[in-house]
C-alpha cells in the first residue's frame, strides 16, 4: 500500500466525520438567515406553548377524551402490527431462502422477496395511507393496511436477516437427521431467533403507536387527531395533555418490552408483578389486546374486510392507478421537462432538510450524551461521580424519551406555529424527534465501552482528556457514525411527511398536488422520493464500508 492510501485507510473515520461536518456546514448556507425565519408573533407563541407544558389541561372532559383517543390509537397500532407480523413472517421466511435447497430457486426467491419487502418499506406509512384514502376513501382497513405494509416490510427484512445469521451447526444436525425444510424451520430456526424476533417486534410496536397517532392526518381519530384539533384552536394546554398521554403510552410499552426482554434472556420464569408471573401476564396482555382491538375495529368501527376487497374497490383502485399513470391525459407531469426540473429542485431541498436535521440532532446528542451514560454518571469510567450527576442523568434521559415519543409530524405541527414555512422548521421537527433516539443509542454505546483499556491508559499516566481522546473516542466513533448514518436514512424517508404541514420539499408539493388532484405529479414526486431513498441506501452502504 502506498502512503496516501495508507493515510486514508488509517484515518477513514476521522476523514469521514470531517466530510460529513463539511456537508452539514454547506447545508446551513442553503438557508437565507437574513430573512425573517420566525413568524412576527412566533416568539410569543413559543413562549405560550412552552408555558403550557407546565399547565396541561386535566379537566374531566379532556381526560375522558384523552383516554378514548389513546385507546383508539392503541387499537390501530395493535391491528396494524399484528397484520405486519403475519406479512413479515411469510415474506421474511421466503426471502431468507432457508426453505429451498436448490441454489437457483433459492437465489430467485431471495431476490424477488427482498425486492418486494424493500418496496413495501421504502414508502412511508402516511403516504400509503394517503394513497389508500385517495383510492378507496377512509375506512378502518385503509389505515390498518397503510400501517401493515411498511411495517411488514421492515420487520420482514429483519426477520430474514436474523434467520440467515442463524448458526449453521444445529441446522446441519437437524438436516442430517432427516428433517424436512419445514421441520427445520420450526425446530431449528425459530427457537433460535425467537428472542430477537420478539424484542425487535416490541420495538416496532412502540413505533407503530406513534405511526397510528399520525394517521390523524388522513382523518383517523386518535391522539394525533385531538392534537391537531387543539392546535387549530390554539388550546396549547390541551395539546400537552394529549402529548403526555402519547408519551406515557410509549414509555409503558418501552418499559414492558425491556422487562420482558430481560426475563426472556435470563430465561427467568419466576419474575412476577403483583404476584403474577410476568411471562404469563405478558402473554395474557398481548392476547387481550389482540382480541379487543380487532373486536373494536370490526364491531365499533364497523370495518368490513369483504367490502374492502369488493369489486367496487377494485374498480376504484384501477381508476386511481390509471389516474396516477395519466391514461387519457395530455398533461402528464412525469413526461414534462419543466415538471422534472421543479421536482429535482424539491428533491435537493428534501435532501438538504435531512442533512440539517441529522446535523442538529447530532449536535444535540453530543452536548448531552456524556452525563447520561451510566458508566460515566456513576464514575466507573474515569470521571469521579459528583452529586449533580444523578440529577443531570435523570433530566436528560427524560428529555430523550420525551423527544422520541412524539412523532416528527406532531413536532412539525408545533414548530410550524413558530417558524415560517420552509425547510428549517421541517429540519427542526425531524431533529427534535431523532435527537432522543440518537442520544439513547449513543449513550448505550458509551455504556458498552470496555473499561480495561481505559483503566490501563490511566495507569500509563493519562489524564481525563487524554483518556477521552486515546480511549473513549476511538472506541465509540465507529458506532456513533453508524448510528448517525442509520438515523439519516430514516430521516430522509420521513422528510416527505413533515413537508405535509408546510415544511417544504417534496412532501409539501405532494400535499398540494393531492389537493389539486394532479395525480401524475404525485407519480413524479413518488418516483423522485423512491430514487432519493434508493440513493441514500447506496450512499450509506458505501459509508459503512469505509469505516469497517
Amino acid at each position, binding site marked *: 500500500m502506498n502512503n496516501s492510501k495508507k493515510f486514508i485507510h488509517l484515518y477513514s473515520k476521522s476523514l469521514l466525520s470531517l466530510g460529513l461536518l463539511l456537508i452539514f456546514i454547506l447545508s446551513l448556507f442553503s438557508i437565507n438567515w437574513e430573512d425573517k425565519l420566525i413568524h412576527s408573533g412566533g416568539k410569543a407563541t413559543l413562549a405560550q406553548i412552552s408555558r403550557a407544558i407546565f399547565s396541561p389541561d386535566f379537566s374531566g372532559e379532556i381526560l375522558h377524551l384523552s383516554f378514548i383517543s389513546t385507546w383508539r390509537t392503541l387499537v390501530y397500532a395493535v391491528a396494524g402490527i399484528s397484520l405486519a407480523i403475519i406479512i413479515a413472517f411469510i415474506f421474511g421466511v421466503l426471502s431468507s431462502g432457508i426453505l429451498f435447497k436448490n441454489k437457483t430457486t433459492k437465489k430467485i426467491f431471495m431476490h424477488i422477496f427482498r425486492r418486494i419487502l424493500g418496496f413495501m418499506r421504502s414508502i412511508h406509512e402516511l403516504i400509503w395511507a394517503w394513497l389508500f384514502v385517495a383510492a378507496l376513501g377512509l375506512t378502518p382497513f385503509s389505515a390498518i393496511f397503510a400501517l401493515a405494509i411498511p411495517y411488514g416490510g421492515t420487520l420482514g427484512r429483519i426477520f430474514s436477516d436474523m434467520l440467515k445469521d442463524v448458526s449453521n451447526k444445529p441446522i446441519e444436525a437437524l438436516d442430517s437427521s432427516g428433517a424436512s425444510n419445514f421441520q427445520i424451520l420450526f425446530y431449528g430456526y425459530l427457537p433460535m431467533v425467537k428472542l430477537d424476533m420478539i424484542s425487535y417486534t416490541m420495538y416496532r410496536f412502540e413505533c407503530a403507536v406513534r405511526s397510528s397517532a399520525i394517521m390523524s392526518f388522513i382523518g383517523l381519530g386518535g391522539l394525533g387527531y385531538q392534537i391537531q384539533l387543539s392546535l387549530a384552536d390554539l388550546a396549547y394546554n390541551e395539546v400537552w395533555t394529549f402529548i403526555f398521554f402519547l408519551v406515557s403510552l410509549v414509555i409503558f410499552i418501552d418499559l414492558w418490552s425491556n422487562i420482558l426482554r430481560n426475563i426472556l434472556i435470563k430465561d427467568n420464569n419466576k419474575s412476577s408483578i403483583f404476584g403474577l408471573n410476568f411471562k404469563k401476564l405478558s402473554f395474557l396482555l398481548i392476547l387481550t389486546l389482540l382480541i379487543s382491538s380487532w373486536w373494536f375495529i370490526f364491531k365499533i368501527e364497523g370495518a368490513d374486510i369483504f367490502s374492502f376487497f369488493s369489486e367496487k374497490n377494485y374498480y376504484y383502485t384501477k381508476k386511481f392507478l390509471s389516474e396516477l399513470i395519466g391514461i387519457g391525459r395530455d398533461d402528464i407531469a412525469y413526461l414534462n421537462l419543466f415538471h422534472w426540473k421543479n421536482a429535482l429542485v424539491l428533491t435537493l431541498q428534501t435532501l438538504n432538510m435531512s442533512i440539517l436535521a441529522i446535523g442538529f440532532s447530532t449536535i444535540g446528542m453530543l452536548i448531552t450524551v456524556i452525563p447520561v451514560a451510566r458508566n460515566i454518571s456513576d464514575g466507573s469510567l474515569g470521571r469521579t461521580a459528583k452529586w449533580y450527576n444523578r440529577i443531570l442523568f435523570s433530566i436528560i434521559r427524560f428529555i430523550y424519551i420525551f423527544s422520541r415519543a412524539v412523532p416528527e409530524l406532531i413536532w412539525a405541527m408545533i414548530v410550524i406555529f413558530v417558524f415560517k414555512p420552509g425547510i428549517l422548521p421541517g429540519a427542526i421537527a425531524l431533529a427534535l424527534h431523532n435527537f432522543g433516539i440518537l442520544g439513547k443509542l449513543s449513550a448505550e454505546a458509551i455504556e458498552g465501552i470496555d473499561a*480495561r*483499556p481505559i483503566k490501563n491508559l490511566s*495507569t*500509563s*499516566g493519562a*489524564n481525563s482528556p487524554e483518556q477521552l481522546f*486515546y480511549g473513549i473516542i476511538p*472506541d465509540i466513533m465507529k458506532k456513533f457514525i453508524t448510528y448517525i448514518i442509520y438515523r439519516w436514512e430514516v430521516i430522509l424517508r420521513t422528510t416527505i411527511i413533515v413537508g405535509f404541514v408546510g415544511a417544504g420539499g417534496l412532501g409539501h408539493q405532494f400535499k398540494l398536488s393531492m389537493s389539486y388532484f394532479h395525480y401524475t405529479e404525485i407519480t413524479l414526486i413518488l418516483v423522485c422520493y423512491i430514487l432519493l431513498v434508493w440513493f441514500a441506501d447506496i450512499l450509506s452502504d458505501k459509508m459503512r464500508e469505509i469505516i469497517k
Partner: protein
Amino acid sequence: MLKKEIISINNISKEFKGKKALSSLSFNIQKGELIALIGSSGSGKTTLLNIFSSSIDPTQGEVIIDGKGINEYKSNKVFAKKVGMIRQQFDLVEELPVIHNVLAGRLSQWSTTKSILSLLIPQDKTLAIKSLKRVGLEDKLYEKTSNLSGGQKQRVALARLLVQNPEIVLADEPVASLDPTRSEDVLSLLVSLAKEENKTLITSLHSVKYAKKHFNRIIALRNGKIFFDLPTKDITESRLEDLYSLQELDNNE
C-alpha cells in the same frame, strides 16, 4: 551491587464485601528482582498486583514504593514513571493504530495538547519505532490494533511499556490467553527487557513451569496468605505438590 528496596509492604489486608482477599502480607522487594506470583485462581495474585499499581487501596497496612507511601503519589503521571502494568491482551485500544497505542506510554510525559496533537501528527515517532523494533513489530506501525493476533497485541503492550519506561513492571497473567509457543515468546521477551534495563518485574502466572524457568524468586499465595516465598533454586517438587494438594483438600471441605 548495592541492594535497594523498591517495594515494601507491611501487614496489608484487603477485604471485598467482608470477604478476605488478602490477609496480613508483609515482604520486601529489591530493585532488579524478577518475581513470579503463583497460586490458583482466587488466591489473591491479581488483588496484590492491583494494590501495587494503585488501582485499589488495601483495607489495612502500608505500601511503600521507592521510599514513599503509595498514597503520597498524588499525580498518576508521576506514578506512571515508577510503576507500569501489563495485563492480558485487553490493554490496548483496538480501534487505534499500533503507533498510538505504543505512544500512549508517553502520555505521562506529554502535555494534553501534545497528546491530542500526536493523534494527528505522531510525536516522538522514533521512540515508538525503536521500541516496536525491540519487540519485532516495526512493520506493524500503522496497522489497526484489532487486526493483530493475541501474541502480537501482547508485544505491542510491551512496546508501550518500553516507551513508558517505569522502574517497576507489573504483569498480570500476561500469557493467560496465548498458546504455548507465543507464551514462551512473550515471557522471555518480557524478562529479557526487564533484565537489560535492571527493572523490577513482578508477574502473576498460572504455570509453575514458566515461573521456574524465567524468574529468580517465587511467591506462592493461597487463600490470601503467603504459602511460601523462596528463591527459585530452593523450590522443590514436594513444596509445589503441597501447594496444590492442600488446595484440593480445601475445595473438598
